[in-house]
C-alpha cells in the first residue's frame, strides 16, 4: 500500500514546462546542442530566403486561367499553360475527339493497380483480370473494332505511351529476367556463359545506346521490305534492358534460398522443372518483390529516355508544347507539372514497396 501511494505521488508531480509541449519538443529536437541550435537557425534563415519568394511566384502572383499574352506581362508563375495545353501534354497527337479512349485506358490501369495493392486479392483471377485489362487497353488505344475509329500507333503519345512502355516493358521483361537468372545459376557452361554475357553487357551500357540500336541499327537487321514500328522497337529495347536488371534481382532471391530446399525437392524425386516451379521460384520471387517494385519505378523513369529517339512520350509532348511560340519560356511551370505526375506515380509505388517489405518480412 505504502509503495503505491508514493508512486502515485511521484507521478502526479508534473514535468517542468520546458520539457513538454511545443517548447519541450523544440528543445529536444531542434536546440539540443549548440551545434544543432546554429544549424536550426541557419536552416530557418535559408527557408525564409527560399519559401516566401517561391510562394509568391507560384501562388500569389501567379495566373491560372489567362491567355499567354497576359502571362508574358505578369510577374509570377503562369500555370495557364496547363489548362490551355493539358490535353496535348497528356495525350500527344492522339485524335482530339477520341482522347477519352486513352483516358479510359489509364483509368483501367489505375483501377487494376489499386485493386492489386491488397495482397488478399492476389489470386489466379487477378492474373486473368490483368490480362483482360491489358488487352482492353490495347484495343481502346488501337481501335478498329466496335465502331471505334482505328488510330495509328505513330499518333500514340503522352502519358498513355509512358505507362504503356513501362508497364508492358516490365510485364514482358519479368519472365525473360527469371529465365536469364535461372540460366545464370545453371550448371551447363554454354547456357551459363551466354546468360552472363547478356546480363553484364546490357547492364554495362546506358539505355540510350540500346535505344539508338533499336532506332537506327535494328532496321538494318531486318530483311528487305519488313519494318517494325518505332514504338515496338523502343519497347523491345526497354524490355531487353529491364530483363537484365530483373535477372540480377531474381538472382539475389535464388541465392537467398537455403541449399536444403533444393536437396529436399530432389529427395522427393522432383525434376529440375518441378523443383523450380513448385519449390524454389515461389519462395525466391516472394523475397524479391520489393526490389522488383523499385525496378518498375526505374522502368517508369527510364521510359522518358525515348524522347531522344523522338517518340512522343509525356516528356516529349511537354517539350513540343514549350516550342509553341505562344507558350515559349514557361518551361518551369510545364516541367513542374510533369514532374508532379512522375512524382505521384513513383511515390505511390515506392511507398507501396516499403509497406510490402514490412508485410512480407518473415524475420528470416
Amino acid at each position, binding site marked *: 500500500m505504502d509503495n503505491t501511494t508514493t508512486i502515485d505521488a511521484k507521478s502526479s508531480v508534473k514535468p517542468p514546462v520546458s520539457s513538454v509541449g511545443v517548447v519541450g519538443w523544440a528543445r529536444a*529536437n*531542434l536546440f*539540443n546542442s549548440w551545434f*544543432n541550435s546554429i*544549424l*536550426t537557425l541557419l*536552416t*530557418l534563415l535559408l527557408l525564409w530566403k527560399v519559401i516566401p519568394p517561391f510562394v509568391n511566384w507560384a501562388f500569389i502572383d501567379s495566373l491560372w486561367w489567362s491567355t499567354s499574352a497576359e502571362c508574358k506581362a505578369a510577374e509570377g508563375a503562369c500555370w495557364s499553360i496547363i489548362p490551355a495545353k493539358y490535353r496535348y501534354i497528356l495525350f500527344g497527337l492522339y485524335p482530339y475527339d477520341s482522347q477519352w479512349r486513352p483516358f479510359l485506358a489509364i483509368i483501367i490501369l489505375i483501377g487494376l493497380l489499386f485493386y492489386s495493392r491488397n495482397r488478399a486479392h492476389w489470386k489466379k483471377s487477378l492474373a486473368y483480370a490483368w490480362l483482360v485489362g491489358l488487352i482492353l487497353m490495347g484495343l481502346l488505344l488501337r481501335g478498329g473494332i466496335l465502331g471505334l475509329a482505328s488510330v495509328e500507333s505513330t499518333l500514340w503519345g503522352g502519358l498513355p505511351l509512358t505507362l504503356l512502355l513501362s508497364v508492358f516493358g516490365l510485364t514482358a521483361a519479368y519472365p525473360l529476367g527469371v529465365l536469364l537468372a535461372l540460366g545464370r545459376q545453371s*550448371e*551447363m*557452361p*554454354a*547456357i551459363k556463359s*551466354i546468360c552472363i554475357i547478356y546480363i*553484364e*553487357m546490357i*547492364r*554495362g*551500357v*546506358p539505355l*540510350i*545506346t540500346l535505344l*539508338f*540500336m533499336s532506332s*537506327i*541499327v535494328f*532496321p*538494318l*537487321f*531486318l*530483311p*528487305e521490305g519488313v519494318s517494325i514500328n518505332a514504338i515496338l522497337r523502343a519497347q523491345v529495347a526497354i524490355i531487353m534492358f529491364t530483363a537484365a536488371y530483373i535477372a540480377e534481382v531474381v538472382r539475389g532471391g535464388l541465392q537467398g534460398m537455403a541449399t536444403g530446399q533444393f536437396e529436399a525437392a530432389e529427395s522427393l*524425386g522432383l525434376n529440375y522443372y518441378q523443383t523450380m516451379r513448385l519449390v524454389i521460384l515461389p519462395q525466391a520471387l516472394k523475397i524479391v518483390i520489393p526490389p522488383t517494385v523499385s525496378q518498375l*519505378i526505374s522502368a517508369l*523513369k*527510364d521510359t*522518358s*529516355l525515348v*524522347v*531522344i529517339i523522338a517518340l512522343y512520350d509525356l*516528356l516529349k509532348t511537354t*517539350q513540343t508544347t*514549350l516550342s509553341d511560340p505562344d507558350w515559349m*519560356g514557361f*518551361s*518551369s511551370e510545364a*516541367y513542374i507539372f*510533369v*514532374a508532379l505526375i*512522375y*512524382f505521384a506515380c*513513383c*511515390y505511390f509505388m*515506392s511507398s507501396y514497396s516499403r509497406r510490402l517489405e514490412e508485410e512480407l518480412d518473415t524475420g528470416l
Partner: protein
Amino acid sequence: MQSAPESPSQAAPSRAIPFYNDPKKRAILFQIVTVLMLGLLAYYLLSNTLANLEKQSIATGIGFLQKEAAFEIGESAIEYSAADTYGRALVVGFLNTLIVSFIGIIITIIMGTVVGIARLSSNWLVSKLAGIYIEVLQDIPVLLQLFFWYAFFYNILPGPRQALSPIMGVFLSNRGLVFAVPAAHPVHKYMAIATLVACVAIYIIRRWARARQARTGQPFPVFRVSLALLIGFPLLTWVLGGAPTAMNVPVFSGFNFKGGRNISPEFTALLLGLILYTAAYVAEVVRAGIQSVNKGQSEAAMSMGLKPGLVLNLVILPQALRVIIPPLTSQMLNLTKNSSLAVAIGYPDFVSVAGTTINQTGQAIEGVALMMIVYLTLSLLTSAFMNWYNKKTKLVER
C-alpha cells in the same frame, strides 16, 4: 513415370539408359541446340545486314575514323577543329564524358555524404529536409531534371548584361557560369609539382609510421603531418615564386564576358542535374552504411579508452565503408552512364559526338558499337576494381 527400380541388382549398368534420360547427355544436347539456334539467328541477322548495307551502299569498317569530321564541337579539352578526323572528334567526346563524370563524382560523393548524415541528424528540421530532398529527387526522371536546369539557364537567368553575381567574381547568366581565376603565372606549374611531391611524401610517411607503430607501438600523427605537407608544400612554392596575387576577373564588354573561366550552360546544367539526382541515391547509401554499424561497436571502442576521432577512424568507418563502397561504386557508374543524356541538351559528350558521326557517315553499326564498347570498358574496369576491393575488405571469419 518415376517408378523406383524394382531391386538394386537390376539397376546395374547392364541396361543402357537412353540418352534423353541421362541428365549429362541431355545437358550437352540442350546446349548444342541453344548455341546452334543463336548461331543461326546471328547468321540470319548478319546476312540481312550485309545485304541492306550493300543495297544502301554504306561502307563498313572503321576506316571512317581517318576521315575529316567537318563539324565543330562546342567545348573540348584538347585542340580540335572541324578539319580534324572523326577519330579525334570521338576522343574529344570521350574526354568530355570523363570530365563531366569525374567532376560530378567528386561533388556527388561530398554532397551525398552531407545529405546522408543530415538525414540521420538528431535535428528534426535538418533530417526532414534531407528526407524530402531524397524522396523528391529520386522520384523524378533524371532527363526531366536535366531539361529543367537547361531551361532554367536559358529562360530564367538574365542575359550577361544583368548577370547575377552571388559571390564576388562569379557571374551567372544565360551564357553559363563565369568566374575569376588566378592570372596565368609560371609558378602554378611548380605548385602542381609540389602537390605531387607532397602526395608521394605522405605515402612514404604513412608506410614508415605504420611500420614504426607495429615495431615500437608508438603512434605518429600521420593525419596532421599529411595535411601540413599537402598545404605547406604548394604554399611554400607559391611564396618562393613571388606570391603572385593577380586575378583574371571576368569583365562585361560588348556582348559577353571577357576573361575569367567560362563554363557553358550545357555543361553546368548537365553537371547540376547529374549531381542533384545521384546525390539523393548516394545519401541513401551513406545512411544505410552508417546505420549498419551496431551501436555497441562505438560503445565498446569508447570503453576501451579510444578518443572519438579514433573511434570513428578505426572502428566505425572501416565497417561502414565495407557496406557503403559497393553500392557507391555502382551509383558512380550510374552517373557516368547517365552522363550520356548530355546528347539531349547539347553537351558534346561521347554519345553526342558519336551520334553526329553516325548521322554524317551513315555507319550506324560501327557508331553504336563504339558507344557500347566505351561504356562497357568503363563498367568492366569498375567491376574489376570492385572485386579487388571486396576481396581486400572481406570479413575474415573463423
